[in-house]
């Protein structure tokens, strides 16, 4: 493709709309229009120039703002649909059948369709991810397409522009003044006072301000891309750990997901607000709601396995004591341990008596530690109790066997074999809470005496090496939006043409009202011709005349 040569002699790249140097319109379209399209200074952009190959087509697709906005709107709509009913991870179900049943039971046919279309797991669906990837692609391509030509042409601007460029600006004025030289000099002085960067070239002034704000969108798009990259990285092992563990009071266990570290739970505390401490201020609210929780807290001690110790050995080195509360996770070596959940009063031990049914005399007692039940409890005097079966979460009989639905001791049940001097072969008995079953009538029974409970803390363990990347992306995004939003690129051209008339033109990428205020200030000190704003028919001419009423 050949270059375009302008009348002023400058060679412009193929596809240029306005001469990079003097601003004369080059394309037919630009020559015909009343106001030139100043968006990218009329420079040549790849997407506007090459349209034939498949690469061009893809490039042009993604660099279009129309497509970009459509993608944004598609993400927006999908996100919104995802909030109509609760997402998968907020639903108490595990199997597909349970999910289907849940959505149908609560939300009827609509719920069923919602489930079947996969909207119940919207944000993990493949097509949602595809949309995000398209968004990122679009941002990258659209930015590259524009930033290079924009940079080049803003760098190359000449001070004197051709009248045909001036006349096609949105804000334009021309006329004669008594003393042209003085007017130009005053205008220059005033523009400098208004903190414009002023360049002059025999009878022409270019005053420019805040050009850097034009780079704002590109900076903020870069921030977004860094953010996306950070999110992508969490897929790589080692960058991201997300585990959960239950830790009972008094327990010491290896931290899930953090090899080499061990945590001891020294106690879980749940505290409510009380009226006396919360004074009169909260009294009314407490009366109304009943009780309000003040703290969830787990007191822990963190240990590290000693160098060279075998994994799981007891060779521990104490690191620190800490109280984990909500909003104050335990932090060590890149890991965070959060207070997320709790269970109060889980059974920890149960104590039983072995009694003679007819005399009700006890032959001794024994205590079962529900987390570590023993095979046999020797009561002395030739009596013992053997544990034949243990069902921590007893849930009826399945296939002729007692059945435990979980390893959590919510509803413990036992099969005991009781040996006594009278009955050396032993008698069997099934013991559950408020229930005893015997195969034949026994002489002896195991009777529940007492139980102890303890609390459990639900902890979440996280390690996220991408956080700093995300934070960096966020920071760059903020710099970019602020740069592009809180400043505007303004330019004012004033020049004397060949016939000695004064031409005034001005352009900004946004906020024309503020630009006009600047121009009015310049007109107050230097007598310049009145201007028109071609897009504001209501602009009051009197305002320019400084009419006070």
């Amino acid at each position, binding site marked *: 493709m050949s270059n375009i040569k302008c009348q002023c002699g400058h060679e412009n790249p193929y596809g240029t709309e306005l001469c990079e140097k003097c601003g004369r319109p080059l394309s037919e379209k630009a020559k015909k229009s009343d106001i030139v399209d100043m968006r990218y200074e009329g420079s040549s952009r790849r997407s506007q120039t090459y349209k034939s190959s498949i690469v061009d087509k893809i490039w042009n697709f993604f660099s279009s703002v129309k497509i970009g906005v459509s993608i944004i709107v598609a993400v927006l709509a999908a996100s919104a649909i995802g909030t109509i009913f609760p997402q998968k991870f907020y639903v108490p179900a595990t199997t597909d059948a349970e999910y289907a049943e849940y959505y149908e039971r609560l939300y009827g046919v609509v719920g069923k369709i919602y489930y079947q279309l996969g909207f119940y797991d919207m944000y993990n669906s493949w097509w949602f991810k595809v949309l995000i990837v398209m968004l990122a692609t679009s941002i990258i391509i659209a930015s590259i397409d524009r930033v290079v030509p924009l940079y080049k042409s803003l760098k190359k601007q000449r001070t004197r522009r051709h009248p045909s460029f001036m006349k096609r600006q949105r804000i334009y004025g021309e006329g004669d003044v008594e003393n042209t030289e003085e007017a130009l000099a005053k205008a220059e002085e005033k523009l400098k006072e208004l903190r414009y960067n002023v360049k002059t070239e025999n009878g022409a002034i270019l005053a420019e301000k805040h050009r850097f704000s034009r780079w704002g969108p590109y900076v903020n798009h870069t921030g977004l891309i860094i953010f996306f990259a950070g999110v992508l990285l969490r897929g790589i092992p080692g960058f991201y750990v997300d585990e959960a563990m239950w830790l009972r009071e008094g327990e010491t266990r290896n931290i899930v997901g953090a090899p080499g570290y061990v945590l001891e739970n020294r106690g879980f505390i749940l505290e409510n607000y009380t009226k006396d401490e*919360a004074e009169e201020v909260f009294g009314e609210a407490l009366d109304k709601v009943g009780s309000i929780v*003040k*703290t969830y807290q787990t007191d822990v001690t963190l240990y590290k396995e000693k160098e060279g110790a075998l994994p799981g050995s007891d060779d521990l080195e104490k690191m620190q004591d800490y109280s984990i509360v*909500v909003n104050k996770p335990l932090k060590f070596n890149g890991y965070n341990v959060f207070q997320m959940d709790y269970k109060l009063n889980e059974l920890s031990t149960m104590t039983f008596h072995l009694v003679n049914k007819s005399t009700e005399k006890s032959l001794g007692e024994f205590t079962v530690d529900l987390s570590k039940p023993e095979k046999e409890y020797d009561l002395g005097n030739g009596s013992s109790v053997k544990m034949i079966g243990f069902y921590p979460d007893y849930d009826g009989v399945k296939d002729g066997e007692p059945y435990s639905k979980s390893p959590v001791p919510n509803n413990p049940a036992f099969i005991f074999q009781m040996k006594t001097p009278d009955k050396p072969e032993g008698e069997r008995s099934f013991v559950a809470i408020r229930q005893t079953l015997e195969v034949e009538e026994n002489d002896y029974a195991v009777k529940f005496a007492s139980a102890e409970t303890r609390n459990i803390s639900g902890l979440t363990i*996280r390690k996220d090496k991408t956080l700093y990347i995300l934070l960096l992306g966020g920071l760059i995004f*903020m710099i970019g939006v602020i740069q592009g939003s809180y400043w505007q690129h303004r330019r004012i051209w004033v020049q004397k043409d060949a016939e000695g008339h004064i031409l005034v033109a001005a352009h900004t990428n946004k906020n024309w*009202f503020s630009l006009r205020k600047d121009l009015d200030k310049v007109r107050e000190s230097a007598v310049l011709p009145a201007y028109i704003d071609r897009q504001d028919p209501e602009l009051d001419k009197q305002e320019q005349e400084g*009419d006070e*009423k």
Partner: protein
Amino acid sequence: MDLVAVSSNLLFVSFVSYLVATLFFGGAIKKSKTEKAYHNSKWGTIGLVITIIGFLAHLGYFFTRWAASGHAPLSNMFEFTTAFGMMLVGAFILLYIIYRTPSLGLFALPIAIIIISYATMFPREVTPLIPALQSKWLFIHVITTVIGESILAISAIAGLVFLVKNIDMTKKSKQRFWIEAVMYTLILVLGFVVTSTTFKVMNYEAEFTYIDKNQAPAEITYHVPPLFGMNEYEAMTPDAMTPWIEMPPIVNAQKLSSLVWAVAVGSVLYLLLRLIARKPIAAVFQPLAKKANSQLMDEIGYRSVLIGFPVFTLGALIFAMIWAHEAWSRFWGWDPKEVWALITWLFYAAFLHLRLSRGWEGEKSAWLAVIGFVIIMFNLIAVNLIIAGLHSYA
């Protein structure tokens, strides 16, 4: 007087100031003939001074309540919505100082007044903080978000002025229909305020037991006569009205009843107003917008999105993620409130692109700004009251 009482009185002072200031901005528009005079109107300046006094009283409310409770008053619907009203006025003051346009005040202050009235319909007693909210980020995140949202809201108000001024109210059109729909919605909020206040003054209460969606028994108290009954309800208050119909377990029939009351009373109000005015409500306001310069309103609309968008991003996304990481161990969890903040953000990003690169100015831009406000309000009201996830204030 204790601090909580001082605080309530200051809120009342600010409320009255905003009412009075509105009248002065009205005067500013009536009295001035030319554009220039209107920009420098004395009435406008007095209006601004009164608004600032109201705003200071409002800040006074905020900080005395903070002192009384020991935490930033941003922890329930009443406090959050009041703060939104406060920052809306703050954002208006900022843009008034840049552009000096009384028409903006004439629309912004009444909307702030409606928002504050709406806020006071929620329980107002000072509540202690649950563990998840005990963090410095409560203040940092929420206040930044509220400031961002209220600056964005100003763009909707500028858009409203633009639309009220420029839509031809004499001919039937889509635009006329929708601008009237906006007016109707604002009147519905008033309907809510009127019903809640009336039944509150009457001390109305009706208690019911019902079976919730997890099939567990529960209790609920209505503060308006129960038009709709909860799933398998049984009345515990003998003389309460019998609900018309029973709702399935996923519908909160108590909130539905309040909503239907508000809509019914609001609609009656609207009809009365129309009967008195004998023209669309938007047409009644049209003369008040006539002197506004359309280009200027358009620019204020854009400018406030430009100022508000970065603030909103910082508060509602960046600070939100930092806090979510501290409190819930993940920086993003697709909770409905988070998702709606993201939707708001994407919407304004689309707005900026349409405007900058596709030249959507004037009327299109004004409509977009109004829709943006609807999304913000949806997140504040509907997501809290209906969708309700972790963030729910109500």
